[in-house]
């Protein structure tokens, strides 16, 4: 046994713990970049998880299942859009309501499916490559959603900062009045961003019900939607840092469990709250240094846009 063999299983577990956070985080990042705060991530994840699970169970097709999860998340987000963008309801209250609604709706949808096991989403297995020591299982042995999560982060990063579409999206998020006055359809752009966020949350939820713990159980996201929201603040609205943060949040949880299992004398409660402490710390730091917020935080976040004004 070489010295680093014990690292591989830890890294593999961290990856599965981080992936749902990456999806939900990167989706909500786009939503927030357009100037909309959707606190309904947890609800959208749950509805995505149950939709993906039911589709996988009924059709046996995981590609369809992931699609259904994305669609379900997007529909939830659309609902949020109708309320906050078209009917101009308060975003915070509506987002909270969306989470409550999602918890109930997913429970209702999943009623008949509790206790039904399914096979886990299969992992990549390239003869030769996946068997390589150390990097084999980590780089070439993941399921397709893990790879997709990295692709999405790269895509969002490129889209936001290297394309005109991204520039417009950020403009809408930073000053909807200015964007509106030069003729951009603020509401339509926000609808798209919100629905993209919903679709990603849905896939994040489906990762739980299809790959992480392949089953449906009520409330199975257990607060991951809220961690994803904290993650964006932690990342100061930068896509790359969302990825880093997700792996850090996931990593702390896993290391904490390993430390306990190894009999190390660490208070598990302290380690459990570390991610949140880190978020608060970042919040304090960025509040002190205004330029850091200005650079990446969307200025219009949470503000209602009145086109007539």
């Amino acid at each position: 046994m070489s010295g680093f063999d014990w690292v591989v299983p830890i890294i593999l577990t961290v990856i599965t713990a981080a992936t749902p956070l990456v999806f939900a985080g990167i989706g909500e990042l786009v939503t927030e970049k357009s100037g909309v705060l959707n606190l309904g991530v947890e609800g959208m994840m749950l509805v995505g998880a149950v939709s993906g699970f039911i589709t996988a169970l009924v059709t046996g097709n995981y590609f369809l299942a992931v699609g259904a999860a994305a669609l379900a998340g997007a529909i939830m987000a659309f609902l949020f859009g109708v309320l906050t963008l078209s009917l101009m309801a308060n975003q915070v209250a509506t987002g909270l309501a969306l989470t409550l609604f999602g918890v109930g709706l997913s429970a209702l949808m999943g009623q008949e499916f509790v206790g039904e096991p399914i096979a886990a989403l299969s992992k990549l297995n390239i003869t030769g490559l996946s068997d390589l020591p150390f990097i084999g299982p980590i780089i070439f042995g993941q399921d397709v959603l893990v790879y997709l999560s990295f692709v999405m982060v790269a895509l969002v990063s490129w889209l936001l900062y290297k394309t005109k579409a991204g520039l417009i999206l950020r403009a809408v998020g930073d000053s909807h009045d200015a964007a509106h006055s030069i003729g951009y359809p603020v509401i339509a752009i926000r609808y798209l961003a919100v629905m993209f966020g919903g679709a990603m949350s849905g896939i994040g939820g489906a990762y739980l019900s299809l790959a992480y713990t392949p089953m449906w159980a009520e409330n199975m996201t257990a607060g991951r939607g809220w961690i994803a929201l904290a993650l964006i603040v932690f990342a100061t609205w930068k896509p790359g840092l969302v990825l880093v943060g997700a792996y850090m949040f996931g990593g702390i949880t896993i290391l904490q469990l390993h430390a306990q299992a190894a009999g190390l004398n660490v208070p598990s409660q302290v380690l459990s709250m570390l991610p949140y402490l880190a978020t608060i710390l970042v919040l304090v730091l960025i509040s002190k240094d205004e330029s850091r917020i200005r650079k990446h935080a969307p200025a219009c976040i949470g503000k209602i846009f009145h086109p007539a004004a």
Partner: protein
Amino acid sequence: MTRKQFSGLVSAVALAGGLLMGGTAAAEDKVGFIYVGPIGDHGWTYRHELGRQAVQNEFGDKVKTSYVESVKESSSEPVIRQMAADGYKLIFTTSFGFMNPTLKVAKQFPDVKFEHATGYKRADNVSTYSARFYEGRYVVGKIAGKMTKSNVIGYVGSFPIPEVVRGINAMTLAARSVNPDVTVKVAWVNTWYDPGKEGDAAKALIDQGADIILQHTDSPAPLQVAENRGVWAVGQASDMAKFAPKAQLTAIIDNWDGYYVARTKAALDGTWKSEDTWGGLKSGMVELAPYNEAIPADVIALAEETRKGIEDGSIVPFAGPFNKQDGSVGAKEGEALDDGTLLGLNWYVEGVDGKLPK
């Protein structure tokens, strides 16, 4: 011991809906149940719901049972009061956190009888009941001690409360009685229910050498992980073999059916008294799921012998001699821990790794 942490966000809706179901039929007696989780949790609440159904089947037209699910512990008082005011004769409140609300409402409705699960406060019209799940874990410990090859048993813990510590200790004592080389590693997840985290804890324990996973949390995720990794596991609260057909050695099953039927009968014929019941294998409150076919016959025989011994009283799980984790005496030869000590148990026995969080 905050029993179960389901969010219960729909409790208000459930309250309205559940009580409507109660109906107003005149001649029959009404028996109510308050659940902390959804009946679809496949664990704790599900087993109470089966108990309710047993009552309904037993008494047919004579009683009308109804339930309210996903009731948050913090907002349970109005739900309980509503039931009492609606003329229910007997009300089961099935979570530790319902204790004080139950007592409070019971005071206002002296004619209504209450049964509170896992609590310790009683009144003239409030009984308490719980189950000695540790007896089941003692039987499981014998199997685990025989089946482990790595001599490391992993235990996914929820909260470091006496109920959970009892289970860990009972299992450890039993496992080491048949295999003194066994050590038990515990990973606390600080939740009753988070499939992802429970699964991660199981993975961590397996990565640290455990080849049997026990759990005192509610989701079947640890069993799924065990199945996936090719190690053994033991189901919790209900038979979870569906999730781990190869890995599940057995499961510790809560069975409230007999108790609920007996108490309803007592309430109907007027013999109901306030009591404290702590039933175990003998009472049928704790059961074991069918043993895995892969367990050798002699190990099954040992498990059955242990089960029967506990039932007839010849085997006492916490009988000495055994040491505490720090090497001091836990119980001397010929002595056993009494119920008072067990109810407040806050130390590990020898053989458990790591420090018990306080």
